[in-house]
């Protein structure tokens, strides 16, 4: 697989798009594209684009690369080339930021109001990675990263916000948040077909927070935070309460520089439906909105016509320099979409921005700092390297002015790295009294064992029989549930042997709810959140100064050989014993009441004789 790295301007993608749509002979698209082309011919096109290839360092990939036109250079050369590219882009970046940007805005005929030039240290980057997946689907991953040079930890009052969204900034300062992660996902990431995602997230909504030790009442702060956030992101986060919040002891570690992280809380709402109403407020958090830049592509009609959709917000404190003398806030907004090949591409393994999003890139966000990433398949003379999830890939660099670059997608790009870990979960048994939760965690690595922490949160209405827990865990932390107050929390440290399946089972009993506790659709079933597996020890890299493609640093690791990936299993839908909330049910209740009253009086009538008590006689007990 190949990747374009574009640092500079976006025009070239439009050109690429025009070509693709012409090939497709889509009448509508063609006219659209032709218009675009004309528009762009008018402006001065600057093409400073790099395109990268991604064969990983296993043999199969080398075989793959062999049938591409230019043979891949030897490893040393690759390294060198990569270094060059990186240096180049670094230089461009450093020079570009303040001066070039203004030029660029004037170039594009000032479609935007000129924003005030951001202060030196606030930065905004945007990136789009498009990766054709092994199954034929296309994975598009947007990332928008804002770096905000301010320090809440020392109690500074923030008076102005530049690129950082004010609503979030206020949330951070008010609730003394030191780290915040929200994800909204519609669908389940199919690891076996799609490989490892850049950023795993569970179906539904997930909220995960670290707050500073200055917070006095953690529960109230958490409650308020969820309510405020549910307003900001327009989601039902207000359903997060003590019954679905857990405070894992070991499974979650702060991803940023953690100074004074006192309290962490995690909650998953598997039932949350994600739709355009969540995308719109999310887009508003971008400095350029959805007007320019990559956000133009987020056409909700298309983005939600996909196999998988996930949007997330990550706020972490990061180091500004190598010594970590000063920290800054990093806000990552990611949006991951997988487009289905079968329903959209008519079985052809090709893609274009226009086909995927019904839009093309028109202009860059004038505030942004650096570029876009594409993964494509043609071979390339220039190469760079990046390590994502322990998978070292070599990216080739392309000059997109060269027209020959386009339109030569190989039919098969079969170098998907076999997913290392994936999980599976299901409810076993039948009948309503009891059941058994089975969780399988697969390790496909051929020789490496992973110590993994499994975090299992089970709602209280499934009463776990912990004595039936079968697990190869080395260490177990269990916090029992309290009815209507807190869920079961089960953390297990498990060693996953290479090439193995690890099974964890536990039996449960289904509780009878009070009749007001049933949801409006009780026969749909009740959700149980997914099991989460995280590697137990990973050295996180919290330094943001290192320049590299953004997608490679969703979870920045210090060493390339260590993996930080989270594996979520699917959520479960469990049926609880449900009364028939229909009219017959009401009738039965009513009838029973009438029967009870009627039977009592009838029985009395049948078994007792009534006599008029004569006064003055001895007192006879009534019954």
């Amino acid at each position, binding site marked *: 697989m190949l990747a374009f790295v574009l640092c500079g301007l976006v025009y070239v993608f439009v050109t690429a798009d025009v070509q693709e749509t012409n090939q497709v002979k889509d009448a509508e698209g063609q006219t659209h594209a032709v218009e675009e082309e004309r528009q762009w011919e008018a402006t001065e096109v600057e093409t400073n684009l790099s395109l990268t290839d991604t064969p990983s360092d296993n043999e199969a990939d080398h075989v793959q690369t062999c049938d591409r036109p230019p043979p891949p250079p030897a490893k040393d050369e690759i390294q060198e080339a990569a270094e060059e590219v990186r240096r180049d882009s670094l230089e461009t970046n450093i020079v570009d930021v303040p001066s070039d940007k203004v030029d660029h805005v004037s170039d594009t005929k000032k479609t935007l109001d000129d924003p005030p030039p951001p202060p030196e240290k606030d930065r905004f980057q945007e990136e789009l990675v498009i990766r054709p997946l092994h199954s034929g689907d296309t994975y598009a991953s947007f990332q928008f990263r804002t770096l905000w040079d301010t320090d809440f930890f020392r109690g500074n009052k923030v008076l102005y916000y530049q690129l950082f969204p004010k609503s979030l900034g206020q949330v951070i300062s008010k609730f003394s948040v030191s780290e915040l992660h929200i994800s909204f996902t519609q669908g389940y990431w199919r690891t076996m077909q799609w490989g490892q995602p850049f950023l795993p997230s569970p179906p539904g909504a997930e909220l995960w927070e670290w707050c500073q030790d200055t917070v006095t009442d953690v529960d109230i702060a958490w409650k308020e935070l969820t309510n405020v956030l549910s307003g900001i992101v327009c989601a039902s986060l207000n359903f997060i309460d003590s019954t679905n919040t857990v405070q894992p002891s070991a499974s979650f570690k702060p991803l940023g520089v953690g100074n004074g992280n006192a309290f962490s809380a995690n909650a998953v709402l598997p039932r949350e439906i994600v739709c355009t109403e969540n995308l719109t407020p999310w887009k508003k958090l971008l400095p350029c909105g959805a007007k320019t830049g990559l956000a133009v592509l987020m056409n909700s009609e298309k983005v939600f016509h996909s196999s998988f959709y996930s949007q997330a917000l990550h706020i972490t404190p990061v180091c500004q320099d190598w010594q970590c003398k000063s920290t800054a806030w990093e806000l990552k907004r990611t949006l991951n979409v997988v487009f289905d090949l079968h329903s959209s591409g008519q079985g052809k393994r090709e893609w274009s921005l226009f086909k995927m999003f019904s839009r093309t890139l028109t202009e860059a966000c004038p505030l942004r700092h650096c570029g876009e990433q594409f993964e494509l398949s043609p071979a390339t003379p220039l190469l760079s390297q990046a390590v994502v999830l322990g998978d070292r890939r070599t990216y080739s660099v392309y000059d997109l002015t060269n027209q020959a670059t386009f339109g030569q997608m190989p039919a098969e790009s079969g170098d998907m790295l076999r997913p290392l870990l994936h999980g599976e979960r299901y409810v076993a048994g039948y009948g309503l009294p009891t059941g058994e939760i089975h969780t399988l965690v697969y390790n496909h690595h051929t020789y490496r064992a992973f110590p993994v922490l499994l975090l299992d949160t089970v709602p209280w209405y499934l009463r776990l029989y912990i004595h039936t827990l079968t697990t190869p865990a080395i260490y177990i932390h269990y916090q029992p549930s309290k009815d209507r107050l807190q869920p079961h929390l089960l953390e297990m440290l498990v060693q996953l042997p290479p090439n193995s399946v690890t099974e964890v089972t536990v039996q449960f009993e289904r509780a009878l709810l009070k009749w007001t506790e049933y949801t409006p659709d009780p026969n749909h079933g009740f959700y149980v959140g997914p099991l989460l597996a995280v590697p137990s020890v990973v050295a996180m890299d919290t330094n943001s100064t290192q320049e590299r493609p953004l997608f490679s640093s969703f979870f920045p690791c210090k060493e390339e050989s260590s993996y930080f990936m989270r594996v979520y299993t699917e959520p479960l839908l469990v049926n609880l014993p449900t009364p028939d909330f229909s009219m017959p049910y009401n009738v039965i209740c009513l009838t029973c009441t009438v029967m009870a009253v009627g039977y009592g009086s009838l029985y009395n009538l049948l*078994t007792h004789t009534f006599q008029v008590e004569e006064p003055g006689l001895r007192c006879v007990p009534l019954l």
Partner: protein
Amino acid sequence: MGLLSDPNRRRALTKLLTRLNAPICVMCYLAGVAWFMGLAFEPFTLRTYMSENAMGSTMVEERFPAGERALATGREFAAHKKKVGGMPVDWLVKTMQSRGLEVFTQSFTRKLPFPDENKERYMVRGTNVYGILRAPRAPRTEALVLSAPCSEGNNNNQAVGLLLGLAQYFRSQIHWAKDIIFLVNEHDLIGMQAWLEGYHHTNTTGGDWSPLQGRGGSIQAALSLELSSDVITSLDLVLEGLNGQLPNLDLANLFYAFCQKIGVLCTIQGKLQRNDWDTTSGYSHAAQTMMLMVLKQASGRPWGDHGLFLRYHIEAASIRGINSFRQYKTDTTTIGRLLEGMYRKLNNLLERLHQSYFFYLMPSLSRFVSIGYYMPAFGLLAVILLLRALDLWVQLGASPPGTEDGVAGGVQVSNGPSSPGVLSILTPVVISHMTGVALYTLPILSQEMAVQHFPVSETEAVVLTAIAIYTAGLALPHNTHRLLQGEGTEEGWRVLKLVALLYLAVLLGCTALINFSLGFILALSLVPIAAFITPHTPKALSAAIMVLLSPGCTLLYCVFVFQELQETPVSLQDGWMLFLSVISQGILDHALYGSLVYPLLALLIYPCWLLLWNILFWK
């Protein structure tokens, strides 16, 4: 008032009850039968209607175009099946994968307790192939199943072809909210059992199968498709599942609604609907349809591959294509459209099907009898047992002299016979149940011995052993009598009969709640003998009647009635052979799928009947 506590009034009441007991019982019995027969009369039944809002009001379009291609796929499947001589696993996997499904296989082996002569199998080894169509943006929590069995010979090739055609078509549709599992199961019910137990990770019957690799969450509904010809005249809906369980009536309504919409002839129990309910033939048609349903339900066996889903609370039905000599033919595209429509509607479900009835009888596809209407028929029969028990109780209370007060007498009665005769009651109860246990266990255990000593096959050995033990039970009263201490008293048989009556009432009541048909048929034959048997009736006549109304003979009549209703009458000889095979099927159903009819009959109903037999021969 004080109707019950006043001795005089109470005595008057009991006297009335005792005097009128026999006529009331006869009346109740006749009323029960009449009520039941009235259920098929159209004005007394309700018209079916869609209860589930999610399926009722939403409109779907059916556009499945590729019937011809599906048939071609079916022919290809047939060719591969013939070549491989069984399930063409590799071809199916490849075909499903090319249609964009996630494909998995499951292998299973099963050794039957004794050879199944109907289907000629003993050691069963097979593979299920299933492909999951993942719904876009769905978190794998809900699924629907469409299954087609891979049968021997040339059967069901079209069903598999249509299944693959639908899979391809569904893959290009965008509106799926639930995963759809396309399952091709080998060895019909055994494969289905293996797949379902694998899916739910249970093992109720001790089979051996490989675990499943892919799942789609909790299954909401399932349809099983059986098609053996390119064109059909009608579609038959099969509802009866394991242990007489039925799917939610909305599933039948859904099928009926789409048949009406698309214009396909649809039948239930193989019988078309008729409009002339006010004529005798119209009524008898409806009654026949309902009787067929009752007999099928009472048998407790799954009448299609769907039958095993019901245990897991998955609403399921089988749809069977029937090609008769009618002029009007329906092609595969139309059936595909029908199924597409049904799946689109099932896909719209927000909750499991739960709105409509789970307990019903259907005299035709558009009419149903709900539990509230048919239960009185059973209740009228069951009340006879209680009336007789009450009568006995009163008699027992009245017989000891010098008990003026009714309450005191009652207490004394309940203590009274226990002093001489706990053993005299316990002995027949225990011995009858021991016979029942023998009937339940010995046929399978002793098959090898029987095969060695008699010139019979294993299956025959099992069936004949069962019949032999059943008949041997008739000789028991003489043996139990030897165990008794002293003479059986008049009081003794009354207490025994009281116990037997109450026992039977509880048994039948519980059975009828779970499987009305079985309970009703058993009540129909057992209640008269239970009500009127005494040691003082003429022995020979009573014995003949009792044998004729015993559970075994009831089964024999049911076989003949069933054949008669299906319009395939059989001669006595064939009927007897059929009866033997029904017994072997019953035992197999219990061993393979966990059907409860055989243990119920052997362990509970038969001993109960033996108790009554004991009373007849009380000395």
